[in-house]
């Protein structure tokens, strides 16, 4: 049975409509919700929490219609972006807060506290006040508090966005470990695609108040079903080339591309289309049978493990991500080729062909 199920939910705002949205979060799944800021991610969380009532559609929790369920009754815990720790309580009191509130017995509380502090390695900071803790420690206490509640599911709203980069990476690993070891259901919301992709089993990509695609991180990255998804997933972003399909449906003619790109689907023949190539799927150098083009390298960003090349065809900027360090002089003319297997073509409505 799925832990959370959202069915055709619509929520109307004065100048924004969320939905219709349908998604299912399975028991024990690490489900990511990704989308640029202010596209409706938080609204989805609020719908799950019961802080918002859907105008249409239903929310089911473990198969039960949740419309009539109160916020506490839904049994869903949440980790807030700013953590919302209680500053007048120390770490221990924060963690056992949900247990105390539910009137759990003292013995059970101390057992649960031991378990949580063991899992999260927070035993040494239980007596500190949140103000005395470091960012990471606070984070752990906040997780611990949500964890101690042993709920149906845990929602994490950009829980590690406020941490510094190194700590973020640590917490990412930590979160996944926690989720796996305890078979918890996590719903993880972030506008940082790297974060979401790193931890999630499946990702829902939210764009303009709708869920554009739900799939494994690999799915949404390698087979984006629309331009909307292709645009927001990937960094640096995918390169797009405007053009149209030839009337016989065998080639894609880019407006700015010097060569034709062979193509086999005839259903959209003659229509305008967009070709998408990820920066890492553009290779420096010509390949005999591969599609290639000439461009001018504007600048080179050596980033250690990989190098970003900013190139130009006419006015259009093309980003290329080459593995390792590449020695390419700036302002030089280069011939590059596209990885044929990893080409994305979208029709005039932005739907993947």
């Amino acid at each position, binding site marked *: 049975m799925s832990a959370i199920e959202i069915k055709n939910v619509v929520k109307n705002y004065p100048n924004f409509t969320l939905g219709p949205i349908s998604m299912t979060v399975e028991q024990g799944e690490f489900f990511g919700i990704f989308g640029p800021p202010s596209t409706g991610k938080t609204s989805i969380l609020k719908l799950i929490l019961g802080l918002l009532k859907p105008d249409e559609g239903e929310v089911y929790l473990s198969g039960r219609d949740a419309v009539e369920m109160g916020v*506490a009754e839904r049994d869903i815990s949440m980790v807030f972006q700013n953590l919302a720790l209680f500053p007048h309580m120390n770490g221990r009191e924060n963690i056992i807060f*949900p247990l105390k*509130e539910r009137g759990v017995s003292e013995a059970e509380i101390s057992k649960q506290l031991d378990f949580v502090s063991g899992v999260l390695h927070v035993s040494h900071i239980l007596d500190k006040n949140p103000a005395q803790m470091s960012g990471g420690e606070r984070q752990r206490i906040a997780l611990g508090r949500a964890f101690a*509640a042993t709920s149906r599911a845990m929602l994490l709203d950009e829980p590690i966005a406020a941490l510094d980069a190194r700590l973020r990476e640590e917490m990412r690993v930590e979160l996944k470990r926690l989720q796996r070891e305890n078979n918890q259901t996590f719903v993880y919301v972030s506008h940082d695609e790297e974060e979401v992709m790193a931890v999630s089993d499946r990702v829902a990509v939210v764009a303009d108040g709708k869920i554009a695609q739900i799939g494994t991180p690999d799915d949404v990255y390698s087979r984006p079903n629309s331009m909307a998804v292709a645009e927001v997933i990937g960094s640096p972003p995918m390169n797009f080339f405007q053009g149209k399909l030839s009337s016989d449906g065998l080639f894609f003619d880019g407006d700015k591309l010097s060569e034709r790109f062979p193509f086999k689907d005839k259903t959209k023949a003659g229509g305008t289309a967009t070709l998408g190539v990820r920066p890492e799927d553009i290779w420096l150098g010509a390949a005999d049978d591969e599609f290639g083009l000439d461009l001018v390298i504007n600048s080179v960003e050596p980033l250690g493990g990989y190098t970003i090349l900013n190139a130009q065809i006419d006015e259009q900027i093309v980003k290329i991500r080459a593995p390792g360090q590449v020695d390419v002089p700036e302002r030089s003319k280069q011939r590059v080729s596209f990885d044929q297997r990893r080409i994305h073509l979208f029709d005039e409505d932005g739907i993947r062909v």
Partner: protein
Amino acid sequence: MSDKSANTPTKTGYWAKVAQDGNKMGFWFVLPTVLLLVFIVVFPLFMQLYLSVTWWTPLEGTPWYMAWEVFSWGENYWYQLTDPRMWGALWRTVLIMIIAVPAQFFLGMALAYLFIEKFPGRKIFYSIMLTPMMIVPAVVGLMFYLLFQGTGPVNDHLGLPSNFSWLTDVNRAMISVIIADIWQWTPLMFLILLAGMLGVPSDQLLAARLLGGSNWQNFIKIIVPRMKTVILIALVLRAVECFKIFDLVYIMTKGGPGVQTETISVFLYKLTFAELEWAYVAAIGLTILFVLSVIAAKGLSYMVKKDK
């Protein structure tokens, strides 16, 4: 002015030096205020201190500075300690304080809680809630004086006979005064407590709600602890104000029946203007000032320590 360095050597004397020395200039700027303060605060204080150790009253026709002729040492101070009327007035003041202030606090807290969430008409209700506080206390006194008349609306509504008196009854007079004070000053509590309550971060409340706490538990465990300072300020403010209660009492009951509602302020007023015992009033006034200062200093240092 524009060419300061050229002018300085030519101008000498005290004022030229003042113009260059910030501290000296400051002294001259502050001086008028200091003189004013001396005149309205320090001088009366010493005058009071002087009178309080004499038997002087304005009835005898000797000017106040001649009061040393009836010098009495600390007799007034001793007398006040054994004056049952003084102790009675003090007790009644404290009684009003320990009933009215907590009542205002709990009512204000409850009202503030109702006003955290937005609801239609919130602003209008908010303004209405605050009106009692803005009415001149004397007018409030008059209002309640009229309300509590034997033939007044209160008896009328409660179906009580017109000889059921409030303001002239030994026990009910005090109750009437306390009710009036609660009515007038609950809004101030409400205002301060609401401000404090709105200062509690909403996501902490939301977190508490999600973690399964009932509203009452969240109120006790999250809202109240986070409002501690505000609550303390509100209580202290009201307690101090309450100690000075005068208008309501004087207009509603004149301290009567007998001395049944006589508070410290009313007591002092009567001593001053009805009995003209100015030296004795001075002694009591100074004693109260001293005692309250000590309490306030203690209280403040406690608060500072808590905050550190």
